[in-house]
């Protein structure tokens, strides 16, 4: 049974914000609006991290997802000529919905193993994390140094890949003209 306390209430609030805006991202026609909701959903995830006392991860979530990935998506949306304002539902909608439901079911299976009170950070908070960033730093440069170095190579490949794609397809990206009337 869910304990009635302020942590659980906050957890419910933030998870509702996250989930509702995430659903909005999927169903809303205007790509820009769904992008806006996506940012809100990222912020909701960040606040869920905060509830887990993982403030560094929360900040990283905010910075990388809400601050940078969303910019990347903004430009990606701006590259699509016509759909940005009136995005028709895809014919794969049913398939996507089924996948989503399946994934949700799997998630529930996992979650049911845990006690929900443990997920809300109450138990973690009792451990009294005072400083997460030191531990992360020590681990990242000690035990997980390989992952740390591999991350840089991954990022390098992403950059090089993007450069080569843009360079080879530079003309293809530019040709799509935009001739849609406004809503007027």
């Amino acid at each position, binding site marked *: 049974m869910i304990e009635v306390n302020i942590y659980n209430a906050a957890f419910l609030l933030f998870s509702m914000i996250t989930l509702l805006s995430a659903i909005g991202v999927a169903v809303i026609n205007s790509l820009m609006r769904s992008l806006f909701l996506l940012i809100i959903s990222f912020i909701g995830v960040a606040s869920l991290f905060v509830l887990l006392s993982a403030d560094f991860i929360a900040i990283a979530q905010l910075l990388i997802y809400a601050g940078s990935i969303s910019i990347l998506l903004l430009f990606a949306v701006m590259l699509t000529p016509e759909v940005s304002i009136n995005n028709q539902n895809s014919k794969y909608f049913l398939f996507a919905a089924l996948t989503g439901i399946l994934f949700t079911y799997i998630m529930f299976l996992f979650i049911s193993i845990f006690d929900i009170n443990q997920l809300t950070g109450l138990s973690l908070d009792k451990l009294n994390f005072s400083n997460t960033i030191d531990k992360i730093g020590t681990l990242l440069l000690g035990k997980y140094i390989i992952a740390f170095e591999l991350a840089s190579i991954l990022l390098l490949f992403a950059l090089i890949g993007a450069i080569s794609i843009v360079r080879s397809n530079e003309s293809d990206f*530019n*040709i799509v*003209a935009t001739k849609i009337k406004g809503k007027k």
Partner: protein
Amino acid sequence: MATEDTYELNIGPQHPSTHGVFRIKVAMNGETIEDLDMIVGYLHRSMEKLSEERTFTQNIPFTDRADYLAAMSNNLGYCLAIEKIADVIPPQRATVLRVIFAELQRIASHAMANGTLVSDAGAWQTPLMYMFREREKILDLFEMTCGARLTTNYMRIGGVAFEPPDEFYAQLNSLLGELPDRVDEYMEMLSENEIFIARTKNVGIITPEDAINASLSGPALRGSGVPWDLRKAEPYCGYEDYDFEIPVGNIGDSYDRFMVRLFEVKESVKIIKQALNILPKGMHKTQIPLALRPEPDQVYFRTEGPRGELGYFVITDGGPAPYRMHIRAPSFINLSLLKKLATGSSLPDAVVTLGSIDIVVGEIDR
């Protein structure tokens, strides 16, 4: 005009950097201007046609309003044209006074042009305000002489309208004393300012051949390195007696045009100082008949206005009004090169180029 890749954008008529109601329709690709169309006529007042209905004297106020930033120079050009066609010879004192006022007007106009150019480059109006400080003093001098600051209506056919008051000379001398220092101040503030150089250097380059082919004149032509100034080439008002030099630019970019204007201010100060020394006593105006009726003839008289060759083409049919009057407006002709300059450049560069050409819409549309 707009193709597949581009979109159409109106810059003007109500835009902060078109210097008046002037419209540029551009086809942009991102921030690059691919093509542009200049649309003028928003300030058209049918000046040339109206002047066929007024007497020669009554037409002088029209010329104030053509180039409203350089009313004195326009007055001068018109009066000289009419004097040539009607064989009126102004007294020597009037000629020297005309030189003084025309050069003052040149300083005021250049201050305005350079100030707005820096504003176009993005300065938060401070250089403009500094340059307005000098312009204000000059306009004060105009006001105490003829009562008006902007539309002076000061020159007359056969002289000038009023004798400057006594305190005029004292104020003028103090202004002349401080102007070279001010110009040096601007040079310190702007022409060695890294950001200003980055914004204007190599922007809007006019080659000398282009400048001549497009019939440019004034600082826009001299900025390209072509030494051509009507005050030297076809002297009028006794300019051949004055000792001054013609600054020319190096490569014809916006920076050169800016610098040419600054240097011209210094040269104008030199001219005014010499004019004050040789200012003779005597009448400031000759008597001319109330209704001047020149013989049927035609004349084209050109003077060096602040923006370039300011020409008045007048045809008379023996009546009291011109049969046809045409103003060769330097802004209009200088503007014609904008399309070539701005095409392919970015929007900020086009704005700086337009600012450096220094147009006045009143003169373009007339």
